[in-house]
């Protein structure tokens, strides 16, 4: 089944949001100021950690909305897990993991939650790891190509 124009639009929106989330996610490490990224015209904001975090959370919220939309849409359209190609399955798993870990990392920023050192590090590195996984799977999917949904 050929995706509709609106589905293609949502796919591109998802891909764009994912790229911004990855960019701002890595910008949460003190690298962009050091390596001149924040010197690029139009990217000065990326050197400000709070601005960077806000953009990261906004794109995260957009991704979570689109992911939930896609998940429920797949259920409503009665897609089966076996309808998806291996790269699509991997991408979906990694996106769910990065969103769930991102949500937990965002929630730990509330004052009423004080995770200790071990939990703090676990949440941080789990989110970082899943983000790297999304980036690798995304690049693999682009390079190797992906099959359309079987039906």
């Amino acid at each position, binding site marked *: 089944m050929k995706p509709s124009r609106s589905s293609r639009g949502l796919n591109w929106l998802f891909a764009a949001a994912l790229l911004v989330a990855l960019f701002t996610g890595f910008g949460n490490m003190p690298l962009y100021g050091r390596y001149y990224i924040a010197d690029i015209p139009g990217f000065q904001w990326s050197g400000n950690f709070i601005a960077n975090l806000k953009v990261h959370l906004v794109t995260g919220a957009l991704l979570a909305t689109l992911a939930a939309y896609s998940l429920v849409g797949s259920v409503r359209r009665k897609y089966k897990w076996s309808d998806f190609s291996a790269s699509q399955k991997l991408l979906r798993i990694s996106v769910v993991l990065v969103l769930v870990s991102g949500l937990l990392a965002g929630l730990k920023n509330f*004052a009423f939650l004080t995770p200790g050192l071990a939990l703090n590090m676990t949440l*941080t590195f789990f989110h970082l790891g899943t983000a790297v996984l999304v980036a690798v799977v995304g690049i693999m999917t682009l390079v190797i190509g992906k099959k359309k949904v079987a039906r």
Partner: protein
Amino acid sequence: MSPRLTRRSFLKAGALTADAVASAGLQAPRTAAAAGGQELCTLLDIRKCIACGECVSACREVNEQKFPEPQGAMPDMLPHNRVKIADWSAPEKREIDHRLTPYNWLFIQTAEGRFKGKDFEINIPRRCMHCRNAPCSKLCPFGAAFTQPNGIIRIHPEVCMGGAKCKQVCPWHIPERQSGVGLHLNPLPQYAGNGVMYKCDRCYHRIADGKVPACVEVCPEDVQQIGPRDAIAAQAYDLAKEIDGYVYGDKENGGTNTLYVSPVPFDVLNKAIEKGPGEPHLKSVADVMAAPNRWATALAVAPVAGVLGALARFKPLATNLEAEKEDNDETQPE
């Protein structure tokens, strides 16, 4: 021998006695609360501070084993024009006590001026405020900065990469970097990290042992009190009311666990103190984490919007698919 040294020696000698008193007497409930994980707060009645420096000396002595000890030359970090080496380890730099450094986690600011027609000179011990929702702790990209259940904000020296994000997001820019130490020397010393960040850890090891922080214990003027947050905050406002004074630290950055009480407004004091690297201001500060946390809330509810959108969008399609399936079933030969 100078009178200052004599008094310091006296206080040092009295420290053990003070420990015993603290554990047996007035401060016992407070330290018990701390050991139980209750949120701790300090109250500084800065009218009393005489800038004797006992708290500064005690802090250095008690925490000396935590201070950085760089081994060998500083790493050659790239790019050179962006990565500045912060080396405070030379003997003369270690002795600096008029600002915050990796070897000096507490110093005393002096504000002189005139308020309501009267001259004032107020001394203000300055260190980490131990914010209730500390940006340094929440936003450390490696999880090296963290909050203990009793509200103490710490930076783990074996995890910190020295990127100084904590310093940038701290409204008072408290943590100070020492290059040439820490984890970053192992993976990619040239390309990532730059030492370890240091700041007051409220003598967490002493609190865990049922003692009070060294600065609180040795103060000859009883400038500082430490105890459960609610009790200390109530005490601070009672004192402010009593002296027609002002409180700093309760509202700043969404609330901190360091409350200063002064007879002079803090905006007046802020104008009177020296400010700069290692010398924090006394301005009112908005909650750094408020806006990110609003967006984190949006992130938490975002999937609900996605689900509702999909239910609205795909209901007709699902109905069509079911109808299509039924049609197919009816046309299938038995």
